[in-house]
């Protein structure tokens, strides 16, 4: 497999504050790769460095066989970007947004026109061709942004939190479209802080915090490597007191967060037996998921 994007020891700091601290990533053709991390982990800065929009302080970057930032312009000819914040042209219709954006890639009006029906169809916006952007719903705007990123038929798509702010229906439609693109051989690189999004879409993930990659692998590998397979969540007023008396005996590890105790175990049976004798406590037994890994690796405290 050939690397579509490879990054070695990437570093960037602003005013003495290290934002990206020795990141190395290799993404192969056709992969869907996710960058996970809390706010301020350095995800967006990493994407901007990869696109050659800012200069790194150190490290090597190669995008589609071209050295970045030196040849970033040429590389971006074959890249599509879905930014975190909408930046569609509000003065334009749906079709005009695609036309004007295609021109930035040096495409002729005729070429763009010939791609329009397919792009509109893909974005479920065929009937909205002449609608102005402010009249579109949040989900439609996101889909138009996705269609816009595809106008130049890119080899790789960069998606910065592609479903943030969308309702569940709109998110599912975006996910479906991203899977279709991936099935067609497009390489995807996305950042997210939605674990279900990462788990559903990504072949491989990197968990980022404080500018570093702290764990990398498939969703399943990350779970197996970092955390016990079973989780029992215990809720109730006396959960904390119960945990300090009982959970220590039956769990490998537990965390108290407010009125909830998260118990991480290899075998949940002894713990569940104990819980049967605690009528005042409610509990939920489930397999460990990516969110557990994420919280373990990046901590439970708030990031602002």
């Amino acid at each position: 497999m050939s690397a579509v994007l490879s990054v070695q020891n990437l570093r960037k700091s602003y005013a003495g504050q290290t934002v990206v601290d020795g990141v190395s990533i290799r993404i192969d053709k056709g992969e869907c790769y996710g960058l996970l991390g809390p706010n301020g982990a350095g995800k967006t800065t990493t994407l901007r460095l990869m696109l050659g929009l800012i200069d790194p302080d150190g490290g090597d970057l190669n995008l589609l066989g071209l050295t970045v930032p030196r040849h970033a312009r040429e590389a971006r000819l074959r890249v599509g970007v879905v930014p975190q914040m909408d930046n569609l042209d509000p003065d334009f219709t749906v079709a005009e947004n695609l036309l004007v954006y295609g021109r930035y890639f040096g495409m002729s009006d005729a070429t763009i026109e010939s791609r329009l029906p397919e792009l509109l169809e893909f974005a479920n916006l065929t009937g909205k061709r002449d609608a102005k952007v402010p009249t579109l719903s949040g989900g439609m705007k996101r889909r138009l942004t996705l269609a816009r990123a595809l106008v130049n038929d890119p080899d790789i798509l960069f998606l910065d939190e592609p479903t943030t702010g969308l309702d569940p229906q709109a998110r599912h439609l975006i996910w479906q479209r991203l899977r279709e693109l991936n099935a067609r051989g497009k390489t995807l690189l996305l950042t997210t802080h939605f674990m279900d999004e990462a788990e559903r879409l990504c072949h491989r993930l990197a968990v980022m915090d404080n500018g570093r990659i702290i764990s990398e692998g498939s969703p399943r590998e990350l779970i197996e490597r970092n955390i016990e397979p079973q989780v029992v969540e215990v809720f109730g007023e006396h959960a904390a007191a119960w945990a300090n008396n009982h959970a220590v005996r039956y769990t490998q590890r537990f965390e108290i967060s407010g009125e909830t105790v998260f118990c991480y175990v290899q075998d949940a049976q002894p713990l569940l037996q104990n819980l049967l004798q605690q009528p005042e406590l409610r509990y939920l037994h489930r397999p460990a998921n990516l969110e557990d890994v994420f919280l373990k690796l990046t901590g439970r405290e708030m990031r602002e």
Partner: protein
Amino acid sequence: MNKHLFSLPRLSLRFTTIWRRNFLVWKKMAGPSILGHLADPVIYMLGLGYGLGGMLPEINGMPYITFLAAGTVCYSTMNSASFEALYSGFTRMHEQRTWEAILNTPLSLDDIVFSEIAWAASKSLLAGIAVLAVIWLLGLSHSPMTLWLIPLALLVGLCFASVGLIITALAPSYDFFMYYFTLVITPMVLLCGVFFPVDQLPVLLQNISAALPLTHAIELARPLMSSAVPAQLAWHVTVLLGYALLGFYVSLVLFRRRLSQ
């Protein structure tokens, strides 16, 4: 990181795609825009020209309204470029994040900044032509030399667009632009000979006036009204071009710094 902050602009024809984007937006609002280019200068020119002009003798051998018309061409083109570079430029950079969208394509910041200048100068060109049309319609000048006001409008546009973008690059919000209009543009209108000859001012103010770009624009425009070749032609053009080039470079460096954060 700072090594290319100060590098010279790298220009290409790619900026034309951004110019076309702005033109497509403008086309949707062309009616009100052209009206704006015409109404404001014409009201000033007619009001002051006939009202005030009726009480005044000829100035340098031309009726006051003709004198004022030459100033109005420059003042109107200056205003067009300034408003475009400040308010509309800030909207595209900050409010609508249009620049951010463009930067994700093969275009560069250098292309974007140059397209802003070219676009604002295009609006100036239109404003200049609008005032020139009024000059002809009112018969204020019959000289074919007034056709030179058209390239002059473009030059004045380039100059004030470039200088204005420095302010846009520094602006935290729209409110910031009031400083520029109150402290720079308005004094310039009063000191540079739009409404009265600069030699009416005290020497100190005359010296300040000599350093301001609008003065040089008006020194070029006024003789054209009476078919004369402007004195010190090369000098005035050089000053205007100098402001344009310096403004372009300084604003580009400031935008590079701002957008690399």
